[in-house]
Structure formats: C-alpha cells, structure tokens
C-alpha cells in the first residue's frame, strides 16, 4: 500500500491535474501549485545528488581505494565552491539594499562564485566539449565509409555543411552567377536547400514520432499501465 499504491495514486493525480489544467481554467491554480512543488523537488534533487557525491567519495577516501586522492580533490573543490556560493563571498551589494549582504549579486568575477564560474567551470566545460571535436573527427575518419548509397548521402551532406560554413565554400562557388539556373549550387543556396528542405522534413517526422512516443509513455505512466518507474524503492 505505502510502497506501491499510494505512489501510483500520487503520480496519476499530479499528471491528471496537469492535463486537466490544459482544458479547464478551474484547475489552473492546482497545476501551478503542482508545478511549483515539482520545481522545488527538482531543486532538492540537486542537493540529493551532492549528498550522493559526498557519500561515494568519502567512502572511497576512507577505504583508501585506488584514486582516493582524486576523490579528495573533488570534495575540496565541491566544498570550496559551495562555501563561496552560499556565503556570497565578495558579492556586489544590491544598490537598493546594500545592508543585506546575502541580497548581493555574485554574477561578476568580483564575487568568489562568479570568479569560479568564469575561470574554473566555464573553461573546463568549454574545453571538455571542444575536446570532442578531435574525437568526432577521429571517429568519422575511421567509421565513415562510402559503402552504399545511404552512406554516400550522409557523408556528402556532412561534407557540404562543413564546406559551406567556412570561407572556402563561398570562395569555391561565388563565381556562379546569382541569377543563373545553377545558382542553387552556390554555398548559401546549398546550405539552405539541405537545412530548410531535407533536414526540416526529416526533423519534422522525427519530432512527430517523438511526440507520439512521449504522449503514449506519459499516458501509460499516468494511467498506471507502466509501473516500472516506481518499481525500485
């Protein structure tokens, strides 16, 4: 009862309130309330994640497992960022309430939190994603083989997109007159044809498929047909 039935009822009720609010303005305030709870729980989920990070790394350090020193670095950086961000260390006071320290803004690098974001988190995430450029290129070089018509289409489209995005694309095709029959071969036209005709059509069909899948899964959850989401306590 406590572990299966009540969670199912809660799930169905919150889902149905959201659906009803779309059709009936009477339940709009209910849905606003439920969405507000959802946002709060999403916020608490971050605290849960942080707690889990602490538990996992502390266990690794205490048992001196291989790589425990990296766990210690993780915890130190986590703790430092948390202290700086919660205390609003170095925050710029709010001009309307300069006497309330915690009302200050910590967006600029003047504040410890803003400084850590600007010089630690932002470069690290940007470089991590930039690193993927090498691996995507390497994987493409190894995996892409024009073995059949479909592969040629994929490879050719990727090549066209990469070419027309850079100056070489315009340099190679600018000699084609804009008012001629072959103007569609100019870099900007090729890009428009690929993205606005073919990619749009493909993406539309994919989105329609995703929407149908999402709606079906949501209904299965709300009606209690699919109970797998609540199966693990």
């Amino acid at each position: 009862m406590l572990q299966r039935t009540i969670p199912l009822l809660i799930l169905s009720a919150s889902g149905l309130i959201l659906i009803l609010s779309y059709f009936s303005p009477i339940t709009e305030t209910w849905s606003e309330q439920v969405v507000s709870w959802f946002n709060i729980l999403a916020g608490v989920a971050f605290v849960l994640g942080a707690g889990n990070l602490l538990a996992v790394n502390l266990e690794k350090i205490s048992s001196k497992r291989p790589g425990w020193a990296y766990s210690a670095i993780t915890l130190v950086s986590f703790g430092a960022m948390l202290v700086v961000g919660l205390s609003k260390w170095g925050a710029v006071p709010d001009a309307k309430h300069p006497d309330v320290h915690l009302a200050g803004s910590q967006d600029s690098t003047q504040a410890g939190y803003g400084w850590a974001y600007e010089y630690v988190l932002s470069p690290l995430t940007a470089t991590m994603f930039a690193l993927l450029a090498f691996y995507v290129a390497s994987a493409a070089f190894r995996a892409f083989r024009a073995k059949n018509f479909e592969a040629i289409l994929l490879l050719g489209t990727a090549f066209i997109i990469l070419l027309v995005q850079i100056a070489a694309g315009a340099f190679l095709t600018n000699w084609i007159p804009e008012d001629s029959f072959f103007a569609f071969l100019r870099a900007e036209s090729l890009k428009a044809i690929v993205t606005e005709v073919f990619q749009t059509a493909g993406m539309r069909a994919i989105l329609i498929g995703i929407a149908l899948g999402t709606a079906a899964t949501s209904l299965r959850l709300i009606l209690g047909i699919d109970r797998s989401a609540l199966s693990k306590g």
Partner: protein
Amino acid sequence: MSADRAQQSSGAPKSDTRLWIALLIFGAVGIFAGKLWRPGPLAEAYVEVVTETRVLAEVVPAPTTQGTSTDVQSAETVAPTSLEQENAPTTRVWVELDDPRFKSGELRRVEGVATEVWDERAKVDPKKAREQIAALESDAEKLSAPTDPTGLTREEFEAREAARMNALKVVESTRIVASPRDSIGIWIAALLTLGIFSFLVRDNPFYKVVESILIGVSAAYWMLVAFWSTLVPDLFAKLAPDLVRATMLPGLAPSEHPGKDFLLALIPLALGMMLLWRLAPRGAWIAVWPLAVVIGTFAGMRLTASIEADFMAQIAATMKPLVAYTSSSAEGAAAGSAFDLGGTLAGILGVVGVITVLVYFFFSLEHKGVVGKTARVGVWFLMITFGAAFGFTVMGRITLLVGRFDFLFNDWLGLSP
C-alpha cells in the same frame, strides 16, 4: 630493458614523461613567443573601478500626496518613531549621497546609520584599457595646468577654472587598474584548459586532477543554482518570509495569504525530506513518493506540450500549398504572380520527406513492396538529416575549440597585437 623495468617498477610510465615534456615545451614556446611579439605581462587583466556610496534616507511625507518614485516603491516601511507620525509610517530608502531629493527636501538622511561604500569592478579589454589609461594620464596632465588668465574677464576665468576642475574630477575619478585577481584567474583557466587537452595524448594524472575539479565544482554550481533560484524564493520564502526578507531577499513582496502559503509549502518540504531519505541506509522506498510527484508532473506537462508543440505544430507546418508562387498570398497568385519552381519543389520534397520518414518509423507493417520502397526513400531523408546534424555538431565543437585557442593565445599569452 632494465631502464624500462625500473621505470615500470617506479610506477611512472615512459609516455607520461613525454607528455610533461611536450606540455612544458608548449608552454615555454608560447610564453617566449608572447614576450617576443608584445612585451608585457602574461594574463593581462584590467578593470574599471566605480565606487558606489549609499546612505539611508527617509521619505519626508508630502502634505497632500505620497512619494511615488521607483526607489520609494521598493523601499522598506518601518514603524513610526514619534507620536506625531503614528499614523504615517516612515518609508526608508538607500540612495546615493548626492541624490537631488535631499536638496528638494523630499528625503532626509537617517542619522546613526553607517554609510555603505563599495567598489564595483567591470572587466575592460586589455588593449582598450591601455589606451584609456594613456588618454587619462594625458588628460590629467593637461587639466592640471591652471587656466591662463590673459585676456579673460574675471567671470570667464572663473567659469573656465570651474569647468577645468570638474573635468579633472571626472578624470581622477575614472579608475582603470590592473586586476591581479583576474590575472590569477586567467592563469588557472589556462592550466585547467591544458589539463583537459592533455587527455589527447593519453589519460594522465594532470587530466584526472582537472577532471576531479570539474566534477566537484559543477556539482556545487548546480546545487547553488537550485538553492538560490528555487529553494530560497519558492520554499524558504514561504516557510519563513520575515527571516528570508531580512537576510536574503529584502525585496520580497508580502504574501496575501501567508498562512495558506506556509501550509502549502510544508508539502514540498516534507516531500523534499522524503527524497533526501534516499541517502539513508534503510527505507529508501520513502523516496518513491516525491519521485511519483516528479514523474507524474513531468508526464502531465510533456503530454500536452508534446502533442501541441511537436505533433500538431509540425503537422500544421507541413500542410502548405504544394504549388508555390513568387507572391505568397492567394490574391498575388490570382493577379498573375510567377510560378516558383524552387518553392514548389521544396514544398513537394518537404511533404514527401515527412510522409516517407514516418512510414519508415511505422513498424506495424512489414517493410516490403510499396511500403518498403517508401521507407527506403525515408531512410535517404534521414541520412541527409543526420549528415547535416553531424556537420553542424562538428562545426559547433570546432567553434568551441577555436574559442579555447583564442583564450590561450590571446587572453593568456597575449599574442594579439
């Protein structure tokens, strides 16, 4: 052979040494090139410092009307301090020291409250900062010389002197200074960037240290975002509005139904604590209740949103006239607009693409005969879609890579002229 064995026994693989040497060479060459190109400090950073001063003032009640300025609207209202003002609560605001309302009598300073003074620092591009510093020094030198009174009347002389002193005051109050705090930040960012790039050679301790920092900092960052943007205004502000107003959100508007808000906020508080119970060694099932709220709400939101924004909207966007004219309106077409071959082909290809790809995704029918051929056309459209998506993804990553190199070569090494 014996050297290799000795190296293996010491736990330091040979390629690690190569990595460190490569990184050191890269750094040394970069620093040397930077110095050769443009003499000056590495990781140069400047800020423009503006000193802000605020004093606490109270609004002097007007005889007939109340003050309506924006500052006053956001001000706090405190209890009256004298018997005469018992029926007129005093409104207090933090204003600039030279606020004109002091002179007009609309405001009067509250005595006994310390003046709040702080510096606001805004980053300035190093090249512009150097130019501005030079210009300010030149201006200050020119303005420091007193006005030559020759051929001037007393009034003219006094007016010019006053203008000079005002200009000098502006020049002297503009402070563009080097920022060691930001320079250290650039150094740290550069080392972290190199640490991530070192993974290109192989997995190594430098990368692992940087990776650990990224995990810790990003976990704390997202937790802080959730705390300040959701938990404080949506939960704590309803549970303890007075405390939150006094310590974190002084602009928090008073609730119309504080009792109801408090009771309703107890529900997510309880659910949140139940969610955190997952960390406890026993009774992890308790966290299923808040998870049910999260899943149910998300399912309800997505059901209507995906049907409306994805399903209906995408079908509506596909339902366009197949024959296109240079004028998009029906009147234009009737008036003899030219037939648009490109637009017509695009429209037909769009509809064909959507239908064929949907047929490919329809697995209830076996892909044979007409269905199979249609699905095959759908696959062609999908291949073009994925090819374009791949191209854009690669371009996006390369743009980020260029951004990181720009940071290393310009912001850190200062190689830009």
